[in-house]
């Protein structure tokens, strides 16, 4: 799906620019921060996102102290207490012929299989929280890595131009030309089917490491971040204050870091929440297809996959992780919109309705 890099900020009112002669003494960052703070919806979204992170980080706490389960161990013959009765986790009478087993459904008690059990008798709620950890680690990690590397490459290509730019941009074009999802599938398939994982010289990553999906996802989105940042670097490089710096004899490194980078950072900051949203969705899709997070690790995507066999009997196993993904991605999208509006230099011309 085409990444939303062409969406533009809320357009300004028709006040002609030259009418705003107000000179306030604050830095643009402070102004943007103030604007973002005042955007209640964006702040609520940020709060929701942080809450989800907190819940996911609390997974071990929940598993050990609240629910007292091990969410990674098969528990097919386990039992639990519901309404005073001791019941087996796997109930008789599942499947079409009613000869199989069906795990118990939600008990809606926080301490006791809140969302029920899955086919392996594991506590779905606890797995949900652990899954959140994996999904968020991979999502945030890959987005950050992608943005950092893409920015560095874009700075180099945009600043130095010429052959350097040509080579780097062509490289990015090659990755871009490859359909993003198919690229992810190809690389993941190859790397994950080797039981020994990936070994390149001294580097060794096991197939179950979360680093594999993280790096793969960071890699496939490089061109999507690289292009807009490079465009921005090019336009900033041509501005007069950079020319002035060159005339003063500043070194390349200094120019890149103190003149160009600060002006480009705002583009990255706007992209970041949207990229995290994208990477989380991508990871969940790859995990759903079993080429993302590998067992015994769980992520929201793998749990949905587990739950698809139980869909008609115990729908909550598949539905709950999806709801978590929707809430997380939604909050990131809203936050991303808010950040973009706050950093919009024309924002002075807008006013809250009413």
């Amino acid at each position: 799906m085409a990444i939303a890099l062409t969406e533009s900020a809320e357009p300004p009112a028709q006040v002609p620019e030259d009418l705003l002669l107000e000179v306030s003494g604050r830095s643009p960052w402070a102004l943007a921060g103030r604007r973002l703070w005042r955007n209640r919806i964006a702040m609520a979204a940020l709060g929701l996102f942080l809450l989800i992170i907190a819940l996911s980080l609390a997974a071990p706490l929940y598993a050990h102290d609240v629910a007292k389960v091990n969410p990674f161990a098969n528990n097919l013959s386990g039992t639990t207490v519901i309404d005073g009765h001791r019941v087996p986790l796997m109930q008789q009478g599942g499947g079409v012929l009613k000869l199989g087993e069906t795990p118990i459904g939600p008990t809606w008690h926080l301490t006791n299989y809140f969302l029920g059990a899955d086919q392996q008798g594991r506590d779905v709620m606890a797995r949900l929280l652990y899954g959140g950890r994996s999904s968020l680690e991979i999502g945030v990690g890959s987005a950050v890595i992608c943005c950092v590397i893409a920015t560095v490459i874009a700075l180099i290509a945009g600043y130095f131009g010429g052959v350097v730019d040509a080579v780097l941009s062509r490289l990015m074009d090659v990755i871009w030309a490859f359909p993003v999802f198919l690229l992810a599938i190809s690389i993941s398939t190859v790397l994950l089917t080797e039981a020994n994982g990936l070994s390149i010289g001294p580097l060794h990553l096991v197939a179950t490491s979360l680093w594999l999906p993280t790096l793969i996802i960071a890699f496939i989105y490089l061109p999507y971040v690289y292009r807009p940042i490079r465009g921005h670097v090019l336009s900033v490089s041509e501005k007069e204050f950079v020319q002035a710096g060159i005339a003063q004899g500043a070194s390349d490194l200094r120019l890149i870091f103190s003149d160009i980078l600060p002006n480009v950072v705002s583009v990255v900051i706007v992209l970041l929440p949207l990229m995290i949203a994208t990477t989380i969705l991508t990871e969940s899709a790859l995990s759903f297809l079993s080429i993302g997070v590998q067992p015994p690790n769980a992520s929201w995507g793998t749990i949905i996959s587990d739950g698809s066999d139980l869909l008609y009997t115990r729908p909550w196993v598949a539905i709950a992780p999806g709801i978590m993904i929707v809430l997380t991605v939604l909050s990131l999208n809203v936050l991303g919109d808010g950040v973009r509006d706050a950093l919009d230099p024309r924002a002075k011309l807008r006013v809250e309705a009413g």
Partner: protein
Amino acid sequence: MAEQLLEVRNLKVSFRTEDGVVRAVDGVSFTVSEGETLGIVGESGSGKSVTMMSVMRLIIDPNATFEGEVIYKGRDLMSVNQAELRQVRGSEIAMIFQDPMTSLNPVYRVGWQISEQIRAHEHVSKHGARARAIELLQAVGIPHPAERVDDFPHQFSGGMRQRVMIAMALSCSPSLLIADEPTTALDVTIQAQILELIRKLKDEFGSAVVLITHDMGVVADVADRVAVMYAGRIVEMGSKHDVFYDAEHPYTWGLLGSIARIDRPKPRRLTAIRGLPPSLINLPSGCAFGPRCPQRFEMCDQVPELAPRAAFDHTDACHLDPTIKRSRRDLTIHPELVEGTNEQSA
């Protein structure tokens, strides 16, 4: 005596923004008669564009509020319905804008855009409208009009594009043409051509013209009457001769004094108006020009009314007594001609 075409009465336009209410136009009144050319001069932020765009109600900003009346041929444009407004726009009052590159739709051919305007107001066939478009392109001086009528805007140079805009604006023979800084975005050599074109066409079509500019030279060239705006208000208005040779407001003096003249004997420093234009959110109480005015005195704490002080059709908004104005004016505009002065700005 020519008919009065347009009368703007106490127009006020404000915008609500994050930082407060911007009073872009703060009580502006003037008239335009049939066939006359009114030049509105002012610096950026004086409210001249907003005034004329409000006349055509082209400002569609939910944060804008409008007060006052705009009487055109007997009707108040501020209160007519959308259908009447559309009928006036383009056929009675037409407008050309500052940047011809962005003012023409890039995806349609220029002939199509001109025809669109014609057919919006008159019952003309496509063929007929296209023929008219070619005639208009010829009238504005575009070579090979029959071929160029099918070109896109990006295929024209800046000056040519502005000619296309003029052709489009005049396509329905409007009684009033508003030109918002038509030459600002063009090279100086092209500027003269465009102004000449406007002058020629207004006579041919019989239109009145309101020319907005920040350039006194442009006004001197084309206008019959001049209005000087500052901080959303008109500070001086009169015939071209009166405003240029008999200026009554210190701001006008400053503008005139800052023009380099080659016909003066002695070289001198250009008079600069010290200070910055005021914030339109926090307008100074009293005379808006007060904080920057070298002539300021106690009375300036009250807002001066725009009134005829020197002659019946030459109004200004300054409290200064007319009798002492002359010497002060000469000192400001051409100090080198005043006997016994040093090289000082007033």
